């Protein structure tokens, strides 16, 4: 784990109309570290991810990734990011291989046939590489999404409920992949609602409530019951 955090969020505020979604949020994520972001629905977790993904501009405060300000220098930030959101970024009428090729070309990566094949094999989709994505299950689409992200070798991974809708086997597999990405030095910020073993990937837990981080603690110090209790207490805080 490196010393300086790759993701630095400082006093972030975001207002939508009259609603203060983020109100002085500060958070750091280091390379090789995974932070699980918990919170009630509407607490602002997705908003935080979107700001870090340079999709939404903050109202006030700063967020930097590898030293680049996400609001002022989004072009410098984007090549460093890997985003796994609700939508898998797949075109139903293209094959898995074609989807990967499209996104890697659009991302300016020079992935040749071998790279693509390796990426697909890495997520277990090599046998359906030339099948149309329309025939894939949600879990397979999520895996393709991850293959896309892994090809780009991002420094920061932003994941919005990556375990949602996956069966037990797929969850275990995703855990392994995320551990591998951590080991390669990437910083992971993961929004999740799961309390089970999926949290095993996380090194720290951060609870978002009242527009800011109400609790930021190493996961190892808590048992599963503690986590659930803490979550229930803090997530009930209203704005």
């Amino acid at each position, binding site marked *: 784990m490196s010393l300086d955090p790759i993701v630095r969020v400082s006093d972030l505020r975001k207002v939508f109309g009259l609603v203060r979604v983020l109100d002085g949020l500060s958070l750091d994520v280091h390379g090789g570290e995974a932070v699980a972001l918990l919170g009630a629905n509407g607490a602002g977790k997705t908003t935080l991810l979107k700001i870090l993904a340079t999709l939404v501009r903050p109202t006030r405060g700063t967020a930097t990734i590898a030293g680049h300000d996400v609001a002022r220098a989004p072009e410098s930030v984007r090549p460093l*990011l890997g985003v796994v*959101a609700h939508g898998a*970024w797949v*075109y*139903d009428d293209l094959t898995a291989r*074609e989807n990967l*090729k499209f*996104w890697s070309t*659009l991302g300016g990566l020079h992935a040749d046939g071998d790279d693509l094949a390796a990426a697909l094999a890495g997520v277990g989709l090599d046998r359906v590489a030339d099948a*149309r994505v329309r025939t894939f299950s949600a879990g397979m689409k999520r895996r393709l999404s991850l293959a896309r992200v892994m090809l780009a070798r991002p420094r920061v991974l932003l994941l919005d409920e990556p375990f949602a809708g996956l069966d037990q086997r797929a969850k275990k597999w995703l855990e392994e992949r995320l551990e591998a990405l951590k080991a390669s030095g990437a910083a992971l910020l993961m929004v999740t609602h799961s309390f089970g073993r999926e949290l095993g990937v996380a090194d720290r837990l951060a609870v978002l409530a009242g527009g800011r981080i109400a609790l930021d603690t190493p996961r190892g110090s808590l048992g599963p019951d503690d986590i659930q209790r803490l979550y229930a207490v803090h997530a009930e805080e209203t704005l």
Partner: protein
Amino acid sequence: MSYARRALAVAWKDLAVERRSKETLNALVFFSLLLLFVFQFTLGGDRERLAAVLPGVLWLGFVLSALLALGRTFLVEREHDCWEGLLLAPGDKSAIYLGKLVGNLALMLVVEALVLGLFVVFFDIDLGRAMPGLLAVVLLGTLGLAAVGTLFAAMTANVRARELLFPVLLLPVQVPVLLATVKATEGLLLGEPLGAIAHWVKLLVAADVIYVVVSVLTFDVVLEG
């Protein structure tokens, strides 16, 4: 060069998706047939009247098809949040614009060829000597429509009342292209020499250049989020 490869990737992707799903193509083909029938019922009887309004009617068909095709061009991006993926693509976003433009142009030209073919067959029109000039005018006019259409389609893709706003924004801006193409087509079908319609062609070229350059320069701004 990465820019060209990205643009081509977008164009290829659009054409591949279209070729396999055939959603827009089917809609356009049926729409063209419908137009043909409507024009026949309203104008077909009187050959002289038909000949007089033919250029206008032909381009009306082209423009309506263009509205249909261009209005849908970013629709495929709405599934599975692919739009987000485009927003986050690094580098100059105008490559995406050019890719989309090429894809739209190809689709529109295919449909226009179909419409033209249907007109020639069902209305028994002799294009003959007008053909080369006509091809040039159709190409230039379609480029004008597609250039601004692709830009405006991106702007209205995620907006309320998209289907209404897109034609409302596009049509007034496209009046010069419409006038130029109809007048030039009229001249060509009447057998006038190229010199007589040269000013219209020059206008089309100027319009195309302006539209493409402005769109390329401003597409980054539109695709910022």
